[in-house]
């Protein structure tokens, strides 16, 4: 137990952003964190407002509990889906695994400590959804102290079960990786598999929802007494108990339900301990092995090696190779560009046929090309903004950042190589998305061509802005590639900025659909101007900024 605690403490210390050198750096980081936190506030506020708005109508029919039911279920689902990736990375890919294995630690101790750290980060994630929900609900229902105590208990225990389930899935997947000879390739594959599993869950849920007849909802609604909440919580084991605990605040039954929920949670932890003891080492041992049948080059390959290329080309090629071959980078910088077309296909094929037909008619007839263009620009901002390829360009270098200082390529050339790769990835993803939409909605080729052309500045914007952010706030100290691309504030910040801009465009497209070409053209020109400004800044000062980053 002591070793478990000691290990957890060490892991926590090393996973919190390491203290930047210099005070200047530290204030910069603190300011950035503050900014990220503030930029999350609108999201939290919007959620709280929605909950507050929905409360009265639902309470009128005795169904306010559905808010808690859905909220807890969704929160659990998010933790489960992200947990799959997160646990694979923390349990297996983290570089500390190599140092921990030779220490006299039991599998359960390592696993326990790593689980604890992951759980702590999940509490942070929950601040975004669960916290505003619980608090708003408490205020609206005029709950007393006991509600808030129960809510705190639920807040702390709710993520445990989804995380245990994600851990079990991760361990099952990874214990097979020890027999795979191409580890990196397997892991990239496992990442894709995880993604597909996550999409599958979504798909299945949609089917479940679709299976419910509207009459069921009406019946449940009429029954009152929060029966709808009962139904929502079926999505996740134990959530029902948690919600019951919250709804029966005043009574002893509330506490009884919480105790039951805690017991269930304890049971899951026990299962994780048992399974972990058997499975963890199987996947973790040999984690850094690489496929190594010695292979000399043949004459053709040797001749190929003799052909010379330019610096920019060499840097671009290196960037692409590292992106594609590093599992964490592949998932977060390459794959994300291409999930949208897949998602759209999923949604369109799983939805009701009539709805799709309706949507098709809507897009086909009523929507003007100008509106479509503006919406497309918004979509491009959203899609390209989610990719971390540019905003992690410097961060990804990590401990080998020093190489970019002694290699004889101008700093600006190095930045250009990174931006080119990020731009091409985003462009390819968006083009694929357009292709899918073109087929689904039978859009004319000319419209697609114009759309692609007009969205170029929108795709370039997140690339330029991301680079600018990462040059200023590079996260170079990480023990785990995953951290360079996931716990990276440049990426989060870019997502927020680009997302807001994209949402604004789409909102305008919907709101002013009759305004003709002016909004769309304005958006294109505005983005072009901003891009030009950003590029000018990078060209002029980028090299100096890069030079100022200490290796």
């Amino acid at each position: 137990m002591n070793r478990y605690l000691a290990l957890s403490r060490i892991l926590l210390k090393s996973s919190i952003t390491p203290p930047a050198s210099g005070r200047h750096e530290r204030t910069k980081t603190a300011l950035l964190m503050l900014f990220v936190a503030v930029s999350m506030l609108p999201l939290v506020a919007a959620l709280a407002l929605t909950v507050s708005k929905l409360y009265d109508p639902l309470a009128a029919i005795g169904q306010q509990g559905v808010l808690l039911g859905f909220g807890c279920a969704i929160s659990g689902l998010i933790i489960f889906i992200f947990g799959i990736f997160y646990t694979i990375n923390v349990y297996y890919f983290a570089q500390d695994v190599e140092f921990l294995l030779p220490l006299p630690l039991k599998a359960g101790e390592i696993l326990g400590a790593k689980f604890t750290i992951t759980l702590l980060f999940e509490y942070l994630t929950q601040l975004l959804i669960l916290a505003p929900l619980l608090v708003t609900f408490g205020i609206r229902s005029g709950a007393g102290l006991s509600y808030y105590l129960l809510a705190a208990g639920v807040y702390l225990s709710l993520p445990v079960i989804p995380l245990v389930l994600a851990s079990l899935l991760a361990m099952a997947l990874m214990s097979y990786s020890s027999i795979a000879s191409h580890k990196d390739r397997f892991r990239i594959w496992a990442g894709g598999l995880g993604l597909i599993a996550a999409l599958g869950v979504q798909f299945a849920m949609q089917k479940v929802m679709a299976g419910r007849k509207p009459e069921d909802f009406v019946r449940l609604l009429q029954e009152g007494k929060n029966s709808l909440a009962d139904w929502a919580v079926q999505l996740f084991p134990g959530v029902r108990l948690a919600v019951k605990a919250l709804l029966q605040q005043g009574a002893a039954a509330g506490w009884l339900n919480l105790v039951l929920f805690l017991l269930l949670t304890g049971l899951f932890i026990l299962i994780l301990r048992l399974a972990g003891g058997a499975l963890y080492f199987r996947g973790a041992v040999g984690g850094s092995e690489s496929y190594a049948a010695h292979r000399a080059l043949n004459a053709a390959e040797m001749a190929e090696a003799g052909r010379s290329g330019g610096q920019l080309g060499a840097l671009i090629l290196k960037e692409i190779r590292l992106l594609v071959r590093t599992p964490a980078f592949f998932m977060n910088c390459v794959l994300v560009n291409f999930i949208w077309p897949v998602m759209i296909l999923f949604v369109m094929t799983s939805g009701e046929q009539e709805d799709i037909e309706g949507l098709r008619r809507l897009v086909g007839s009523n929507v003007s090309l100008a509106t479509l263009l503006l919406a497309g620009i918004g979509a491009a901002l959203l899609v390209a903004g989610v990719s971390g390829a540019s905003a992690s360009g410097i961060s990804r270098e990590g401990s080998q950042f020093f190489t970019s200082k002694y290699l004889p390529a101008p700093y600006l050339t190095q930045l250009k190589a990174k931006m080119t790769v990020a731009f091409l990835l985003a462009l390819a993803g968006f083009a694929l998305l357009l292709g899918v939409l073109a087929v689904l909605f039978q859009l004319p080729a000319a419209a697609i061509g114009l759309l692609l052309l007009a969205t170029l500045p929108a795709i370039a914007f997140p690339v330029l802005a991301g680079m600018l952010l990462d040059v200023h706030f590079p996260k170079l100290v990480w023990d785990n590639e995953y951290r360079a691309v996931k716990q990276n504030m440049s990426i989060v910040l870019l997502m927020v900025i680009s997302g807001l801009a994209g949402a604004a465009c789409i909102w305008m497209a919907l709101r002013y659909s009759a305004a003709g070409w002016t909004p769309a053209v304005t958006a294109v020109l505005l983005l072009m101007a901003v891009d030009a400004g950003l590029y000018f800044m990078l060209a002029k000062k980028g090299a100096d900024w890069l030079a100022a980053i200490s290796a």
Partner: protein
Amino acid sequence: MIELVQVNKSYSGKVKAVDDLTLTVPAGEIVGFLGPNGAGKTTTLKMLTGILNPDSGSIRINGLELHREPIRVKEQIGFVPDSPDIFLRLKGIEYLRFMADLYRVGGAERRQRIEEYTARFEMAEVLGNKIQSYSHGMRQKIVLIGALLHDPAVWILDEPLTGLDPKSSFLLKEILRSEAGKGKTVFFSTHVLDVAERLCDRVAIIHKGRLLFDGTIAAMRDHFKADESLEKMFLEMTEDE
């Protein structure tokens, strides 16, 4: 030729890693850079290669000011860092191509040097594998070969001998000697004192960021007025304080 004039460097404004260092490494000679752990060797070499900026002082390589013309200076340097764990996910051959492209090595030389050096260091067999699958010594060798491709005028190596097997380290010493013979500048840090004693024309000894000695080993013997080994003299010199 490498010239350091009154170079200072401290980390986060506190630890003084290099203290008023003035040192000249002439062309055509092998100069060993010695000092206990934490003496400031790596810090100095990093400043020479542009990885770290000195707080003050000037650095010139073959007459060119480093901070004025960084690219032209970097093109002349062949650098072997102390950690060879870089670009692990590239294959050996991909890394060499990358280095050749960046240092603009073209034409017949390119292929000929890749073939020659990989054969001499016995790395041809594994060129198609990822560097990640290499042993520590193999990683060092691939980094070394990458630094050799452009036939650098100035060699800067941070502990190049640790980890190499006897044959490779013999080979490296041969190469260093012949390069210096051709008028190249060779500056490397090491902890292996008997190698330094036999290989180097001169040694520079640094301790707590300050230069303690700079000259030939014969001159050092004169200084100590005894026919002692470099190891003894080194220990004596870095003992006090």
